[in-house]
């Protein structure tokens, strides 16, 4: 498979007081287009840092991230923002919805930055929310919704710009097991239907079976790569 995302010799270090912490230690990885990749690791394993660098939110000390041959790590902040707006979607553990905006407006937010007309962007947002089963919640603010509903809004927000890559950081971390399954099913379904590449970070081994490939991380290094069908 041709590499869609290529990670080369990625190293990231933090200074924490006197200590220097190595969050990522020479990580190499190739991700194919349309792949559902799960990065599994405990807290402090460097999995979130890897995700941030892949999303261009952090700069590595050394190494490179290439998306279709384009280096994200060398990109200017402005171009990176543009790239994220056009090609990436994000799902967070704590949903990170804007509390003052309604469900529709939250979903439409990435399109506002992209300069899409109000009518057009709200239609797209509404359609997605209805598809995700939130027909009754379109005008509600995040505080008026349950965790599962909020996360569905945030999935809609991640999908609204028809991205190539979706990053999910512990997407079910705040949800109970029933809702977790619900959310993961929706996510899986949407991802597979649209052919988007999903990179999910989690510490929950139970979610790993949704992924095409699972990467285990410990202390900033990839320790094990499990392909689907081999372990499951």
């Amino acid at each position, binding site marked *: 498979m041709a590499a869609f995302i290529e990670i080369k010799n990625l190293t990231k270090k933090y200074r924490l007081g006197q200590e220097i912490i190595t969050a990522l230690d020479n990580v190499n990885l190739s991700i194919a287009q349309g792949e559902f990749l799960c990065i599994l690791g405990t807290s402090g394993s460097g999995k*979130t840092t890897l995700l*941030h660098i892949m*999303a261009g*939110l*952090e700069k590595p000390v050394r190494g490179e991230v290439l998306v279709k041959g384009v280096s994200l790590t060398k990109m200017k*902040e*402005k171009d990176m*923002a*543009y790239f*994220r*707006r*056009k090609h*990436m*979607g*994000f799902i*967070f*553990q*704590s949903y*990170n919805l*804007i*509390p*003052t905006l309604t469900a529709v407006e939250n979903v439409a*937010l*990435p399109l*506002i*930055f*992209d*300069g899409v007309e*109000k009518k057009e962007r709200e239609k797209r947002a509404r359609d997605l929310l209805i598809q995700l089963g939130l027909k009754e919640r379109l005008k509600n603010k995040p505080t008026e919704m349950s965790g599962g509903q909020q996360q569905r809004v945030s999935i809609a*927000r991640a999908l609204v*710009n028809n991205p190539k890559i979706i990053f999910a*950081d*512990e997407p079910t*971390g705040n949800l109970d097991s029933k809702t977790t399954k619900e959310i993961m099913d929706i996510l899986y379904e949407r991802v597979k239907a649209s052919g988007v590449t999903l990179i999910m970070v989690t510490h929950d081994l139970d979610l790993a079976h949704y992924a095409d490939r699972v990467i285990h991380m410990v202390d900033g290094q990839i320790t094990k790569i499990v392909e689907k069908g081999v372990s499951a």
Partner: protein
Amino acid sequence: MNKLDILKLAHRNLWRRKARTILTVVGVMIGTTAIVVMLSLGIGLKESQRKSMERWGDLNMIRVQQGINFDREGKPLGEAKKLDDAAVAEIKAIEGVVAVSPAYESGGEAKFGRKRGHIQLIGIDPEEMVNLEFTASLGRLLKAGDRNVMVVGSQVINNFRDEAEIRKMQRGMMFYEGPRRLERKDPGEMMDQRIAMEIRNNSNHEKKRIFNFQVVGVLEGEFKQHAYQAYAPIEDIKRMRKFMMEGTQNGGGDPRMMREIAMKTGGEVRATSSRRPMQGYDPDDYNFLLVRTEDVTKTREVSDILRERGYNTYSIADQLEGIEKTSRTIQAILGGIGGITLLVAAIGITNTMIMSIYERTKEIGIMKVIGATFQDIHAMFLAEAGLIGLMGGTIGLGLSYLVSYIINHFSRNFMSRGLPPGEEVMGISLIPPYLALFAMAFAVLIGVIAGLYPANRAVRLSPINAIRNE
């Protein structure tokens, strides 16, 4: 990001914290009101001074007089310029000059109907009268080809009394009270009347002649200098003067000439001891020239040019300059007081925006992650700060009009003292449209400037910290 979307988002974000936003807006409102009201007082002051100057004369008129200019120590500068037709042509050619008319001053006893009095008569080029910015309240102005007609100022009638009344006074039965300003007579009484001017010869006072004039118009304006004068075609006055000067020795005998000699010789009239040949006036030289310019600015420019060329000039605008300088200083002080208030308001905006950014750190981070550029974030916060400025500016401007109205209302009684009756009382606080526009623009600008620092802070916030899972 679309500009309208930025404004809408900014507007929405502002009303999340109603009390805080309202208080900040109130700050800007007070600042705007302070600055507008203070400046309006300065402008009102300037305008009322200007109005009172205009009561005395036109701001775009220059009187070019016979005589020379003196330096600060009182030494004469250059030679006196002749006021003749060449001078009229020369002045007409100066840029900014609209009209020039030569003028002779004359005067004497006059009679019409059963009234007798005195008229100060100015002879001017009748063709130029309309260009000299005279207006007639009754009848018409002088025009080309006029002969033996005059246009009188509205106060001229007050110099006339019934002959019977005069006889009584001469017999000591009545006190002469001078022209009674309060019991003003109707200037229309003189319309179409034939005025008989009695002119005496300068060298032989027994020799006299009557010159008749028909009144064809009354001039507008009760307080200007010309209200006390009458105007006639210059050719008529020339004939009058010719008769007056018949047989006199040295030209004209104009008192101003003697004054000039006195000044040149250091206060004493010692024409014989002067080393220079005596510089008399040609009796045919005009007494003065009336010059009308485009506007006040041109009046000053033209006056300066004329003085440089050796003409002696006088205009009300000369005095206005000094007064304007004073009122500019007063305006600067008043504006400064208002400015300080607005500065405090600006600091309030900055403070509000910084607080708002602290509260919205996470939100800003999320927006950055999902694709907001630095410029988007920057624009959003500047828009919020600018909106506070706009709201404060708008309400402040409304309040300014109210305060201005109240000030004018209560100062009206006080202000109307000393004004001639019938004169419209001017407010001491004036808000011209340009001040209103300036205040609004300034309030928005202050808001945006106050928002610069917080907006830059928001831009620099790390998105990672904002979205990190707690």
